[in-house]
């Protein structure tokens, strides 16, 4: 059961809604924290350092990310984001799978042992407010460092998952994207993004992702997002496009809903 929860969180983490503009170049104010079920815990450590990690996944997939603001470039606010990820324990857990009757439900064949791997991401973020919306551009390089033999056939060939883990099979990748947020009313906003992920040389060498979310902010401490995610990408077997989340068994839509909470830690 625990493994199923981890899988749900992993998928959610990869496809989930955005909270209070975590992709913008603006770090959280000092002592403010935000988190969602599918989102990492973000914390404004100082005015010039935002730290984030996913607490539910941390013990099976240690992860840490920091965002550091830099000098403005004209009207653009800038920041860099640096992330470390150690997915090996989670992937090996997914490989062992969960016994259901006489079968093993798993995303990776139990024949594979995933070696120690470290993912490093470095992104540059630029944000500015325009008359019609707030926009953020981002681009960066991802590195996958593998300590051992990683069998290329151990990949999880699912939309979102394949290209995020692809960096370990390809050793490097690039990502580019744009986030746009427009406040429609006092409480209601719309958030959309377009992301391109490139893995030059891999058999599934790119994916394009787009997300559209309606964001309702009840208060400074509570927000609800819902919407869809669209993915188009190249996989080892060819190209594929999908809307997510989607439950094929019921052939129906399950709206993506994310509840998010936030608060401020008292300054000493």
């Amino acid at each position, binding site marked *: 059961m625990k493994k199923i929860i981890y899988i749900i969180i992993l998928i959610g983490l990869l496809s989930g809604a955005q909270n209070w503009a975590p992709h913008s170049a603006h770090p959280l104010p000092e002592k403010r924290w935000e988190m969602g079920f599918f989102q990492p815990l973000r914390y404004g450590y100082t005015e010039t350092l935002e730290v984030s990690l996913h607490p539910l996944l941390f013990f099976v997939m240690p992860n840490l990310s920091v965002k550091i603001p830099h000098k403005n470039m004209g009207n653009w606010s800038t920041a860099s984001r640096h992330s470390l990820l150690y997915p090996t324990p989670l992937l090996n857990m997914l490989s062992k799978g969960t016994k259901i009757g006489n079968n093993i439900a798993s995303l990776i*064949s*139990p024949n594979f042992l995933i070696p120690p791997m470290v993912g490093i991401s470095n992104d540059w973020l630029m944000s500015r407010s325009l008359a019609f919306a707030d926009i953020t551009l981002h681009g960066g390089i991802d590195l996958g460092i593998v300590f051992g033999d990683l069998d290329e056939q151990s990949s999880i060939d699912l939309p979102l998952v394949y290209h995020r883990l692809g960096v370990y099979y390809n050793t490097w990748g690039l990502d580019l994207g744009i986030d746009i947020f427009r406040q429609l009313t006092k409480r209601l906003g719309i958030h959309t993004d377009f992301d391109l992920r490139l893995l030059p040389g891999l*058999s599934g060498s790119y994916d394009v992702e787009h997300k559209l979310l309606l964001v309702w902010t009840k208060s400074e401490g509570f927000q609800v997002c819902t919407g869809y995610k669209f993915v188009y990408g190249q996989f*080892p077997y060819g190209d594929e496009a999908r809307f997510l989340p989607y439950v094929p068994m019921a052939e129906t839509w399950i709206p993506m809903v994310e509840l998010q909470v936030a608060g401020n830690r008292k300054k000493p």
Partner: protein
Amino acid sequence: MNCKVLLIGLALVYSCEPFVNEFHDKISVAKLYEATAKTPAATTAAPRVITWNIRFGAARFPFYGDSCGDKVIAKKNDIKDNLDNIVAEINSLNPDIILLQEVDMFSKRSGYINQIQYLLDNTAMNYGCYASIWQVDFVPNYGLGRVDLGNAILSKYELTDAERIQLRLRTDQSGLVQYFYLRRNILKVKIPDLNLYAVNIHATAFATDDTKQEHVDKFIQVLADIDLTGDQFIAGGDLNSLPPGAPVIDFCEHDMCNDENFHMEGIEPFHKEGSYFDNFDGEPNILQPLYGAYAPAINSQVMNNPEHLTHAPSTSNERWDIKYDRKLDYLFTNVAGGWVHGSAATHQNLWLLSDHMPVSAVLNLSGD
């Protein structure tokens, strides 16, 4: 504007495809393939026909799903090496028509190879058609991932009117298992140059209900429909059924894996799925109507002889020193001249290339 709306609509529909292709149509068009470079082929009155279950090019790989194996994903290079061995044998036998079962198309377990195109491009076969029996974007069972497995017919001559005829699903499975499970079919195609239909089936292997009877009955009906219109056919495949009068109908002991027990009161199931051939009334003689109505390549005088056994589970040799212990693969025709006398063979020497051995024979179209 309307065009844009249509394109967006199509994109949405495509995007919303379910992960499993359920093949709702009883009859649908089967996909056609051509060799990248064609080999000239003169029509013949004596075409050689082969039926071969190639086990997705995995040879005797101890796959978890159909033997006592524990492996899931075969190495791509191993699959290519084995496909090259199959190619060499096809080129050596020089058939005109091949009925293939268990052909993988872009499946993870076999290195995402388009096996039909690989065989067309490396043999003298020029045309192919394909009907999937298992097309799932991601099978979350032992990390199997994407699977597309099916029946194919390859030919030196052009193929037309390719049909995928859906067979009934098993009724002895839960809804969830059935959703992700195989959807078997009959593949039927016309070969105008030979004035002939080719019909290929891979009947159920593991059903414990009457599904096998349904599959064989449907096969007989498809052949009868061709016969009634005065057309000719060659037909065959992996019928997963024993010849009438087979001396052994229970292989549970041979097929039993280390952690299994059968034939013991209180232990369910009593028989191993796929290893017992008397699940319902008449199963041991289920193929009698075919033998009665049409000409078998391996005739009824010799069909139960040891030299015509075509199958043993992939791990039987290492466990029991058994290479083949039952006949499951067949060729039939309604052509008046039948098969050329003495041309039929069961190629048991190829036992290492699959868990099934090919059966071949030369058709006598001239009637001499």
